């Protein structure tokens, strides 16, 4: 059974009571701020993901543009500083022989990775597409 002190006796609160009240207030405020911080972090995280997906799509586009120009596309790491510092990597490899996709001839796996340091930890996003590129046939003269 909890017995409350008679507040009209003119004694006021003790130091421990005040400390406990301040502590509880602090805990409540911290929880509220933590909740707000986590929601903000989620918004920023998803925004970064959207931007990184757009960057990866642009990487795949650059590779397609280079193919159309009959140029090679360098499969090396690229650094982008805007809007967030991101390292981009592109690779196009033939389907491995032991894969279930090996029965499809002339299929390449195009992979683009984006890595950036987020609010809390390192984030990574990957886009994978399949590219059909048959060997070019020699034109027969009529």
């Amino acid at each position, binding site marked *: 059974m909890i017995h409350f002190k008679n507040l009209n006796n003119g004694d006021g609160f003790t130091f421990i009571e005040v400390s406990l009240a301040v502590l509880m207030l602090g805990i409540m405020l911290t929880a509220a701020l933590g909740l707000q911080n986590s929601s*903000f972090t989620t918004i920023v995280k998803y925004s970064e993901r959207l931007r990184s997906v757009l960057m990866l799509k642009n990487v795949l586009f650059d590779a397609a543009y280079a193919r*159309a120009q009959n140029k090679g596309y360098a499969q090396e790491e690229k650094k982008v500083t805007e809007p967030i510092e991101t390292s981009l990597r592109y690779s196009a490899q033939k389907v491995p022989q032991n894969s279930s996709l090996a029965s499809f001839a002339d299929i390449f796996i195009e992979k683009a990775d984006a890595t950036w340091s987020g609010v809390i930890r390192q984030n990574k996003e990957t886009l994978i597409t399949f590219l059909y590129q048959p060997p070019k046939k020699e034109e027969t003269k009529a």
Partner: protein
Amino acid sequence: MRSGFTLIELVIGLFISSIILLALYSSFYVTGKVIKVSDDIINIDVHLALIAHQFENDLSGIFVPLQLSSTSTATGAAEPNQQASTPKQAEQEKESPQKEIKDIFVSSNKDTSLQLLSFITNNPLQMHHKEGPGSRMVRVVYRLIPNEDKTAFILTRQESINLDLKAFDVKGQQGIRGYELTQNIKSLQVEFLYPEEKQQDEKKDTKDAKGSDTKAEQQPIAFKTVKEWGKENVAAKEKESIPKIPQFIILTLELWDLNRRQSQTFILNYAIASFNASQQEKKSDRGRPREMLSQEKKGQQVGKIVNAPNTQAKP
């Protein structure tokens, strides 16, 4: 005598309460700022994702309708030998004569920003119409219209199975309904890329001369970048060398934040999947008379006997 607070008690009380109030105020201030920044991020992201997705959806299905390469449908003239299989079909053809589809891919600018972008796509949003399941071939028209106070642009989108571009200009209830994609565009610029025909021809020449295409295929192909497409005032010779649709499209999109104080720029790139198919169609028909093509398509022999008397006995 009633005892009150001493001065020291009051000062200490005020000091503690001011610290608590300061902490509360700063937390509210930060909260307000976070809400504002979050709103801006969400607002830009929602519109960015919407525009990027909608353009990707529409542009991935761009194609050149096949009937344009066929003379009978392109010119709109009915073939004399062609007989309608049933009277009902003949009636239908009479009611809806096939017209040449013009403005396959059109884009125009106003003050360096996009004004109109229209094309034919097989990836429509609306699959069912009043009459039932509709055609997958639709025309899409994007327009960039300045808002009332001219601080931003509104991007609108129209879609219809009616392929005539002029039908999209009709206003009121008879017109084709459009809807707003976003209101917060600061600017939208479009660039169209296509391979230069000269280079392709040169490449073909080298191939013939050397007899081997290994080196010729290594030759880089130069791409030309234009900011408008399908302009009326282009010279006929130049028009011949330009393909019907571009191979790549680059959109430079500048979006305002919620309060239109700051803007962010995004580059959206799209490849037109049907470009090579449309070019092959063009190459196979290139330089050949239209009559010949139409005869070939009907399965007749071409170029052997022109005015020879018919030796075969008629049944």
